[in-house]
């Protein structure tokens, strides 16, 4: 009898291990509140959209002193060139894959000449870039990534959340364009 109970228990624990691993690995695919999924499913491609209430995207525990803007991209046909001006006192940018994992991140100190210009390419486009040596290679931060699609998120620091200041202009005027130089 005791043996049988032990055997049942052991089998149960083994199954528990499998269930545990399965749940952890499957959450990124089936999470209900998943912020990255909301962005991927609602936002248009190659256009910065501000992630405030009107965008319908609900990011949990968002920083009240930061305004966010996201642009979805696909890298199959062309790279993506992001550039902006009207820089606020602090800003940062991150490239995410479609599951919300950070592929690349930077802040305004990483930027070249305090200018927002980022070129996201896949390895094949990177090889072409190296051969052609276009002007953008020197003026922009080149991010080489194996991901096929994803999104770039800009964060702009807002000192007073109720006041409209330069950070809004930064987010609204940022461009997200296919890069056709290669």
């Amino acid at each position, binding site marked *: 009898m005791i043996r049988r109970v032990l055997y*049942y*228990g052991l*089998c*149960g*624990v*083994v*199954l*528990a*291990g*499998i*269930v*545990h691993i*399965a*749940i*952890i*690995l499957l*959450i*990124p695919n089936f*999470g209900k*509140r*998943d*912020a*990255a999924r909301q962005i991927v499913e609602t936002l248009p491609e190659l256009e910065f959209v501000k992630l405030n209430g009107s965008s319908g995207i*609900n*990011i*949990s*525990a*968002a*920083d*009240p*002193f*930061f305004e*966010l803007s996201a642009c979805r991209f696909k890298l199959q046909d062309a790279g993506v060139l992001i550039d902006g001006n009207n820089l606020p006192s*602090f800003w*940062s*940018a*991150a490239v*995410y894959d479609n*599951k*919300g*994992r*950070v*592929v*690349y*991140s*930077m*802040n305004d*100190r*990483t930027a070249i000449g305090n200018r927002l210009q980022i070129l996201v390419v896949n390895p094949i486009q990177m090889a072409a870039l190296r051969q052609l040596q276009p002007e953008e290679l020197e003026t922009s931060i080149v991010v080489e990534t194996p991901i096929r699609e994803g999104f770039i*998120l800009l*964060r702009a*620091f807002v*000192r007073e*959340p109720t006041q409209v200041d330069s950070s809004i202009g930064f987010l609204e005027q940022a461009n997200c364009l296919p890069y056709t130089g290669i």
Partner: protein
Amino acid sequence: MRILVFFLSVMAIGLALGGVSAHLSIRQSHGLGAINVGPWSAWPFVGGAEVDPYTSARSTADGTLPLGAAEGLSFEATTDQNGDPLLQNCRYEIAGKTPITRVWTLAAYSDDGTAIEARTGAIAAFHSGNVVRFADSSFIIKIDDRPSSGNWMAIEGKDRFKLILRLYDTPITSNSGVIDPEMPKILPQGCTS
């Protein structure tokens, strides 16, 4: 009959244990992959390519977008300095200094991740540019339902809440590893029932 009992009991143990352990491993504040400083926990690998499955599952389930490693690091606290849960009907003093950083922000959130708003409509939050400091650059932020002098965050209610302190552009996320950072203390000041 015996096979059915075997099957049902193994399924019951497996699903219950597996589910509970998965839930605990991503829900506990001092969870896997975290660095802990007093009541504060941060997940330094959440913003990099080497993110572990637990940290990744956690941010997906929470519905947050993690900060990239070069953007900053966010510290979360759900308990006070003594390890008791943060409650909206209690008073706290957040006292001390933050690690070196260019900008930091501190905000209070309810359990579901919405920023807590006071009756006045002001959000319960501070940043490094609007907090009043002492001469040695340390500060005290008071969490209280009644108006208070100095840095005051109005929080009222009864539920649990959490504090998130985000350090933007901080050297503690650099490749040299996370050095033991100095974080402000969350000192309980009594509760109203």
